[in-house]
């Protein structure tokens, strides 16, 4: 489903990933575990094609990112740690904008049914700027329910959620895996999910990189 082939990534003059590989098969849930600044978000950004790695490639169903450029949304759904909602719109309007971007058409009944999963039905007409952080997070996670893609990628999904919502998220993910899907998500704590595989990302303190850059500068 997803194949990450030996990625090297430098950012802000620091080496974040070196020779990182990952294979994600069907019906699996993979957790990327690591401390702050270990490069979890950077890895996800690389996978979805926001950042270009120094070398290596990412394949979705055997196709490179360039080949699926305009159809990216069919292959995966990515929930970044930023809350991608516009402040001056209500929850329902935001969801509507999001659905339009994906050219998905649903009637209001279907929408409200899915909003109920995270208990958002009652507050769906509230403006996003009046919501709490947890509520905003729930709204952005609700986008997963609307998507048609098999691969879900989430960045810090359990950050700021209450216990009940974490359980709901767990059940959603398990359900998704049962339906031939797969999930890739990051966290800095170990959640009680049915995780098939755990990948530990270590914080690199690779001084070699700077030494190399010194070489190109000549000796001091």
């Amino acid at each position, binding site marked *: 489903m997803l194949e990450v082939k030996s990625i090297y990534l430098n950012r*802000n003059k620091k080496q974040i990933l070196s020779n990182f590989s990952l294979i994600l098969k069907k019906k699996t849930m993979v957790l990327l575990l690591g401390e702050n600044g270990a490069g979890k978000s950077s890895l996800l950004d690389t996978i979805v094609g926001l950042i270009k790695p120094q070398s290596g490639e990412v394949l979705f169903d055997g196709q490179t990112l360039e080949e699926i450029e305009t159809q990216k949304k069919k292959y995966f759904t990515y929930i970044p740690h930023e809350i991608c909602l516009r402040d001056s719109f209500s929850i329902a309007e935001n969801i509507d904008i999001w659905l339009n971007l994906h050219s998905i058409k649903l009637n209001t009944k279907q929408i409200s049914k899915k909003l109920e999963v995270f208990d958002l039905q009652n507050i769906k007409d509230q403006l996003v700027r009046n919501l709490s952080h947890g509520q905003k997070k729930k709204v952005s996670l609700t986008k997963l329910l609307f998507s048609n893609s098999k691969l879900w990628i989430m960045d810090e999904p359990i950050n700021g959620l209450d216990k009940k919502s974490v359980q709901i998220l767990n059940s959603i993910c398990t359900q998704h895996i049962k339906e031939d899907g797969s999930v890739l998500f990051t966290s800095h704590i170990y959640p009680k999910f049915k995780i098939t595989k755990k990948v530990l990302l270590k914080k690199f303190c690779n001084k070699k990189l*700077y030494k190399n*850059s010194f070489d190109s500068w*000549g000796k001091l």
Partner: protein
Amino acid sequence: MFTKFANPNYFLKISDKIYYPCFLSSIVLFFISLYFSFFASPPDYLQGETVRIMYVHVPCAWLSLSTYSIMAICSFFSIVFKHTLADIIARACAPVGACFTLATLITGSIWGKPTWGTWWVWDARLTSELVLFFIYLGHIFISNAYDDRRKGDRNAAILTLVGIVNLPIIKWSVDWWNTLHQPASISKFSSPSIDDSMLIPLFLMFFSFLLFFTSLLILRIKSEIVVRKIEIIELNNN
């Protein structure tokens, strides 16, 4: 050969050798050309003594254009080959070039008041030179605006490359359109329309400015390289 010169350390080695001769000869030349332009050259048949402003104005104008072309070449190299030295040179050039442009504008307007009868007109030459000044200012501000130096360098390089359309406009504006500013006197190599007695101080002054510019540039580049080395050392120690 190119890569050899592009190495900052090799560059530093050469520039150390060049710097002092450059600086000293620029000072000596400056005083010689000052003597020539004030005492050893005749007044103009029309402008009288006002012509002496030209000995500052014209070298400054030439240098303001050539500095920008250096910057544009460096920006091209920094965008295409991502070389650090190109960024450093462009960054070092910008304030110097801005000063030359400002000097051109100010001396020009001082010259314009007695000669033309006005401080400033919106003529093609003058306006495009003013635009050049704004582009220089934009470069300085952008390259210093970001927390990440390289981001500032890159954006400033983009601005410089776009602003290059201004250069031919400045150069040939006097030929393309009727302007109040007189056409170039020295572009025709066969017979410059300036008398020899006035040409000598002009070129002396130009070379002294050029040498001064080079030594200033070397100084600025050196300090910029040191700043970047300090940055790398700090990164290494953390």
